[in-house]
């Protein structure tokens, strides 16, 4: 444990402490330090998007992000997406539409799309394509992924309309 320091991170809404070397990247701290193995190491060179997590709501590549730079930031990983026992609409729709096949790229896609749908609940296919252009999938051919994202956007819009409807009553 030579050369390790205690790193305190806010991950998925919880304060977590772990021992890390000063140069460790976030990906290693999440997977090896915090046992959050949903975030995947793909290329390890910032090309595939498999290791995407959210830092203060924005997608970043955890394989290229110094863990120490995440102190004081809110980190969200795939494990933080579901709401209790309920899957996030993106998780449900990726499963239903066949947007996840081997599944290795899926956590990265879901984090990227979470950020997209947070700011834009009516994305065009073009906007979706641009948003996911940094995430690679070698199984699906992307068509079903885009369908899944459109379906999620629909669910989120319906949910929002429902909430607003209730507020009006």
């Amino acid at each position, binding site marked *: 444990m030579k*050369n390790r320091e205690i790193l305190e991170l806010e991950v998925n809404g919880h304060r977590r402490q772990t021992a890390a*070397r*000063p*140069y460790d*990247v976030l990906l290693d701290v999440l997977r090896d330090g915090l046992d959050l193995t949903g975030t995947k190491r793909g290329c*390890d*060179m*910032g*090309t595939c*998007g498999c290791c*995407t997590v959210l*830092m203060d709501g*924005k*997608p*970043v*590549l955890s*394989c*290229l*992000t*110094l863990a*120490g*730079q995440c102190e004081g930031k809110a980190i969200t990983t795939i494990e933080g997406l579901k709401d209790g026992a309920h899957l996030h609409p993106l998780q449900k729709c990726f499963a239903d539409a066949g947007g996840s096949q081997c599944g290795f790229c899926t956590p990265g896609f879901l984090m*990227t799309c979470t*950020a997209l749908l947070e700011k834009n609940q009516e994305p065009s296919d073009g906007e979706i394509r*641009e*948003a996911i*252009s*940094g*995430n*690679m999938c070698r199984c699906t051919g992307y068509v079903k992924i885009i369908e899944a994202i459109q379906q999620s956007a629909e669910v989120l819009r319906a949910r929002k309309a429902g909430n607003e409807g209730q507020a009006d009553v």
Partner: protein
Amino acid sequence: MRAPLSQFGVESPSSLEDALARMEASGGRLTPMAGGTDLYVYLNAGSIEPGRWIDIWGLDELRGIAEDKTHYLLGALTTYSQIRKSPVMQQALPLLVEAAATVGAVAIQNRGTLGGNIANGSPAGDSLPSLLVYDAEIDVRSVRGSRSVPFHQFYTGYRASVLAKDELIERIRIPKAAAARAGASRFIKVGTRAAQAISKVVGAFALHRGEDGKIDRCRVALGSVAPVPCRMTQVEDHLTGQTLDGELIASAVELLDEGIKPIDDIRSTARYRRFVSLRVFERFLQESRES
């Protein structure tokens, strides 16, 4: 393969002053790290030696877009996402916004910085030709003081620059006069695919004509065709003061052909780079002529 990182350390300065003092005290052995989008690619691959790093990501005084009377001011830590979203940048520096949009994809754009692109000094750096077109000046700082370097004089050779070992890039200044006189302009990037690609050829061109129709300001900047991103001043001089016609276009393209020195490497061939550079430049001139 993971790099053997045992001799590797990271310092976390509390302010710009603190960072500069540490860089001076280290005798030039600290290398700045910001978003890490270049450095960790090399470190993860084991292709650079572990060293001592100074993490400047937290220095908010180096972040953000501002302007004064004469210049647009971009802090060294300004990210590509911030450049893309800025209404001022969209209006005034479209070539830089377009370049920012082609860097990696959103997750890279959230972390990659303009100062990092400059300091990394890759001849393929996507933002660099646009900065050359806009006559950018680089403000650098150390405990010894501040100085400003015209960007076209910043690099001295392949991945080598005038930056001293104790100096940090503080901000990028772009003269409003240069931005206002860009005229017809075009950013081009040719890579293997639209996203997540490192350029085979990257370039930015601008051509401004006076009321008499003659070219009175012209910038031709290319990356990946020489050891450093560079302005083709011979081509610029050849075009300036002239009226754009078929003969001038042909002779300008010929001069560009003589001026570039592309190489074969893992991403492309010298032959392809030369062919593409000439074609995109010729097309830009033809479109400018017709507009």
